[in-house]
């Protein structure tokens, strides 16, 4: 569908229970952005923040993004260039926040068991199909619900607000 092309990128593999405290540690909450980004996921993979490349994909186990409502958790991943998150399961608030800021996040049961670190992963955002062509892996992830796809097509909620403002101020 228009505006939501497939995503292809290199996988960074993480385990289960990756929390918002690991994605965006509370002690840096008001630090300058450059500083905050250095600490993203450092307690899981210290090399991640320094080596992640634009277009890379985070692949993880169950309950990814559990914890706080802090939107900085998906925002930091997006700011580091991460193109999408695919996990066995996603914590509720994280999955909403990711879409709200325009980051693709898909729950795909058992994805973390079959993808290897460094694999080239392809995601069809609308159908939720996740594949690794070179190893013949094709998995069906949960479809992103239509209201959230619509937010993604707008690039997140922030661009939507401008049109609401225009409506208000007419």
């Amino acid at each position, binding site marked *: 569908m228009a505006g939501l092309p497939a995503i292809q990128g290199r996988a960074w593999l993480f385990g289960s*229970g990756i*929390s*918002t*405290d*690991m994605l965006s*540690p*509370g*002690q840096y*909450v*008001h*630090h*300058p952005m450059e500083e905050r980004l250095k600490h993203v996921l*450092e*307690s*899981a993979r210290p090399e991640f923040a320094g080596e992640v490349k634009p277009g890379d994909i985070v692949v993880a186990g*169950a*309950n990814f993004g*559990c*914890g*706080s*409502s*802090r*939107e900085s958790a998906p925002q930091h991943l997006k700011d580091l260039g991460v193109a999408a998150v695919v996990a066995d*399961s996603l*914590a*509720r*608030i994280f999955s*909403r*926040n990711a879409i*709200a*800021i325009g980051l693709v996040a898909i729950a795909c049961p058992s994805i973390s068991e079959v993808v290897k670190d460094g694999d080239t992963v392809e995601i069809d955002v609308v159908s939720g199909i996740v594949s690794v062509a070179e190893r013949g892996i094709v998995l069906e992830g949960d479809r992103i*619900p*239509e*209201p959230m796809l619509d937010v993604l097509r707008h690039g*997140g*909620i*922030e661009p*939507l*607000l*401008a049109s*609401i*403002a*225009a409506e*208000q*101020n007419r």
Partner: protein
Amino acid sequence: MDNLAGSKQLTVAEEILARAAGREESSAGEYVVARVDAMMMHDIFAADVLSMLEQAGIQHLHDPSKVTVVFDHMIPPPSVSAASHQAKARELISHFGIDAFFEIGRGICHQVMIEEHRVAPGQLVVATDSHTTTYGAQGVAATGIGSSEMAYTLATGQLWFKVPESISVVLEGQFSYGVTAKDLVLYLMKAIGSAGAQYRSIEFGGEGVDQLSLADRMTISNMGVEIGAKFAVFPAGSVQTIRENAGYVASHTVSLRSLTPQVAVPHHVENVVDVDEVAGTPLDQVFIGSCTNGRLEDLRQAASILEGRHIAKGLRLIVFPASSHVMEAAAQEGIIEILNEAGAYVGGPGCGPCFGGHLGLLAPGERCLGTHNRNFRGRMGSADAEIYLGSPMTAAASALAGAISNPCQVDHMTSGREPFGVVTAGDPLGGRGEA
């Protein structure tokens, strides 16, 4: 109420979301756009949310009277950046006409929302904090959202929701001595877990609920989010839980009497064990407070164990009351005095170190037991520190011993005025030499 046998009833989540969406009914799995009855933000996100609205050109909020702001996290501001963030928030709170603004010193947002009657049974409420599920203690369908979704909700008064599936938890009997609501919810972390409750609404019911105070219910609903739940609802007002002909995807029954004190061990809230399995683990810090367990009842339980005794040498006990009302009542009851005499540091109303911003962060290699809600790696300072979670009674007993201790093993009947003993960290019996 007279229901025809077999007629389908809605779950609490289905009923509240249907009403808020202006419909007769809704079913689990559907998506609805619903009018939100109340919104809350705290100091970490208020400036971000309101700035986003300002920059988008939004002139006015949909209904500022529904909005509450509480400053409770980075308070008093520990840095110039936090102070600047809060100054910006104050400016925008005034600009957008939000009257229900509670400044530094009033307390933790969720406690303040309940004390100030900013929520009511049957409402749909969102806030920029994951522990918003706390209001479920008063029959509210309440859940956490992020900054962008809050900006959208403030501008439009509505938000889309997936109607969650529901699970029922029937509580039977009463707690034994030394066992509290915190132990129940930690037990549920283990028994149900995020695999069982993710995205779902938990409804609590059964005769065991009658024994639970509002404080107990708030503790349980608060940590519902740790089990992954969207709502965690108790019966209140006209909101009845666990309806006979409603569709629950799972049902659990818990005998309160059979529970023992529980502790979550590093580095995940679902790693829950009986306190005896980790008793004797030496501690550097004990923290009593947070939106989970910083209420008067919690401080009272801790004081019942600490009275006339002194915490272990080499351990620090830090206490943050959940609100100014809690602090005032605790002072009137002599609880603050007991805590001070026991060697505690008692701070002002607020979140304290729970979210890892300040006021009691941990050094590498240090170990803390707290009454709060999360023990993820790096939650409270160094990623090389360890966090354990338990009840206020477990926290108090552990502070006396300098090591994780079962509160049932502290002889609560003989708390004298003599110090419990300045004991060496690592002795789970507090140096009393009991078998």
